[in-house]
């Protein structure tokens, strides 16, 4: 069903909100990358667990949570304006 054309350019505030949504969409992809990154590490002949691995994963985890917490208020505040979906 044809809909009225959305505006091509936006004012500053809606623009920021949209980029925030983009960022929120990209965050899990970044997270996946960081969590899969250790697959590329070559452990050489070391086969047992190292504390460094544990610390790396928890730091990544904490970082993702922190960024998501930073995004959440901005995302939920703009939710009423659904007309600018995408």
């Amino acid at each position, binding site marked *: 069903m044809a809909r009225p054309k959305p505006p091509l350019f936006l004012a500053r505030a809606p623009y920021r909100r949209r980029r925030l949504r983009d960022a929120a969409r990209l965050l899990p992809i970044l*997270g996946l990358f960081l969590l899969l990154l250790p697959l590329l590490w070559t452990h050489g002949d070391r086969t047992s667990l190292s504390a460094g691995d544990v610390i790396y*994963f928890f730091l990544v985890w904490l970082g993702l949570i922190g960024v998501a917490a930073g995004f959440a208020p901005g995302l939920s505040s703009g939710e009423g304006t659904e007309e600018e979906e995408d």
Partner: protein
Amino acid sequence: MPFNLLVFACILYVVFLFAVAFIVERRAQAGRLGWLRSPLVYTLSLSIYCTAWTFYGAVGYAARSGLEFLTIYFGPTLVFIGWWWLLRKLVRIGRQYRVTSIADLISSRFGKSNTLGVIVTVMAVVAATPYIALQLQSVVLSFGVFASVTPDGVSPPDPGSTAIWVAVGLALFTILFGTRNLDAKEQHHGIVTAIAVEAVVKLVALLAVGSFVVWGIADGVGDIIARIDASDLSAWQVEPGRWTGLIFLSAAAVITLPRMFQVMVVENDDEGHLARASWAFPLYLMLMSLFIVPIAVVGLDRLPAGSNPDMFILTLPLAEGQGALAMLVFLGGFSSATSMVIVESIALATMISNHVVIPLWLRLRPKAGAGDDLRLVVLNARRLAIAAVLALGYGYYQISGGSAALAAIGLIAFLGVAQVLPALLAGLFWRGANKNGALLGLLTGFVIWAYTSFLPSFGPGAMLSEAVFTQGLFGLSWLRPQALFGTEGMDPMIHALFWSLTLNVIALCLGSLLTFPAPLERLQGAAFVNVFEGAVGPQRWARGQAEPEALLTMAQRILGEDAALTLFQSAARDQGKDGFLPDPTPAFLDTLEARLSGSVGAATAHAMISQLVGRATVTVEDLMAVASESAQIMEYSAQLEAREAELTRTAGALREANEKLMQLSIQKDAFLSQISHELRTPMTSIRAFSEILTEGDLPPEMVTKYGQIIHDEAKRLTRLLDDLLDLSVLENGTVQLTLELASLQQMLDTALTAARQTRPERSFTIHRDLPSEAIYLKTDADRLTQVFINLISNARKYCDAAEPELRIAVRQRAGRVTIDFIDNGKGIPKESQSLIFEKFARLTDANRAGGAGLGLAICREIMTNLGGSVAYLPGQGGAAFRLTVPLRLEKLAA
């Protein structure tokens, strides 16, 4: 710890939960929920993701496979921090369409098909059974640990009877709170709050043990890091396939697990809570797993070899003599198990009653009267279903003997429910996904899962014979359950994940691409996929022949008398009617269906209403009507817009015309006053001289002189009137042109000769280029010559050079001929150039030579009539006029 004390503690804890649930239910009924609807409670309730499997099993998992246990948390973390992709849409749809379970969502999306609802229900029950068994097993194990440590007097119970007591107790608790009432929205505030409390207990217990291990047994963080490095915890090698696969699997499971769907979507009170949970829930998961590795390392270090690593979290404090801490851990594990079982069985019971029992009941007793309260049937069906689900779990526990490691069973259950994921995602993001595709995909995935993962989990020889394992089904080696199509050497879990989901997706896509959906499916597809873009033509019901009374009877059977009457009365009032019976308009039928589907699911509600309305579904024509209606509106508004633009244009043209008219009126006035002035001047002198003549006694030479003056003035008047007449004829366009071929050179010769009478005393040098003048024009030669004469006379009159010269230049270009008349005077000042073609425009009176100032105006009119133009050429070193005439003037069709 005395066993009876342990039982007492458990009972006390359950009573406490009971009280919490009870108080909250009371407050919810009074409408005073307050902070109980906060994002915090929502987030904590999500923690039923962490079951006893993760509570006890994570340490065991870490002890066996290193960091791999983290994948079970990474998947949900990614799903939640990426909530803008999927969860937001899922929650919005769940709230907007009053979805009661994941089976309801799938069935509702694919045309309210109950077949799909039944399939998803069966899959969910089968997948949940081992999972519930797992919870029972973990509780039994933890009981066993305590009992074996301090047997004192009370005989330690055998695991079987413990399991059955736990199962019965859980069933009772769930039935008491999960099926107290049948809400229009399938929400259970009491249970959700109790689960939030349990989530806190779980977390506190794990953090307490972790702190004890890190700062009590070990010597702080540095020491723990050293111990981890020193430990031979496991030969941990990340297997890329398993690592990636398990992250994906846990991400899929957190979306599709019936209990997660229940707390995340069905029990959601406010979409805003999801934003908070998007980071708070991952934070909870992180805290839950923070101390897993230290506990595993220290446990391997301190506890005797051969002790069950799944129980480290309990045995470690016990071995260190921390009875109270162990008690807390025990309660934490108990919490994990109970909260999971309660919510899972509620979710499954809702699915079973809405998709299996009620449709069957309605088919068996289609014409039951008003006294037949369906609500009781629904509630009883749910109670039975809860009991049945727990019985199944207990049965599985008995059959499997509680031998398998916790983690393996959990993953099998995850993979089972993950089969719903393709249908769910396609349903939410792809309008083209249809019922047949979903059906095919679900069945394919389910069969492959059962064959490659679920049935083999009982061990060779139990469900599948030894021969099938080694030689494949029917002796076909490419059908071996753990090496499908010859993919040997894969991890069995990843093998099952890969094949079941791949074939599931392929079947879904093929089915959707090759078959055509019913209209209702298309409507629902559009409504779900475009849920954020407002309602999609919601005309699900044509105005049917339903009797309002029959509708009311049916609604009462499901909603209860009071609720149904209130609903009908308010609908009637909205329609402007008194009483309780509104007209069965499409809008009302939609509202009613939405309310009913909150209680019995979309498929059943739709089926019940269509039974009464007499028309089962919308038709393709209805869909097209909705589409063309909106297209018409669009077209109409486009027409309006065009008309408005046209109006604006017309108004502009009118304004211009009006201005022109005003100017013309002013010009006419000026013209009249000019003409009176022009006529008056000669008249005055004629009158004056004729008066003198009438007085007589004048010398004859004076008489002759005055007579001459009168004659001249009369001639001037005549000329003026001739000019005016000429002009008026030309302006009206009524002039008769005699078109003929004429030589331009001849016309110029004639004009020059004629113009010589003007100021004959001046000698003019004429520059001509005779060859260029050898052109035959098809035009009105007399009129054109008249223009030439006028221009040449003007030059003779007004050129103020001492040795006046006139240059005549002729050029021919593209069917038009331009003739320039350029003298060497001082030309016409710039500000006057636009005026000279106006009537009565005379620049100076100095050289007034009897003209009335109509000459150039007449020229312009003639040229217009001849299809050409006359213009002043600036910048030629003197006065210069350019005439343009067409080479061949065609007679206008007039």
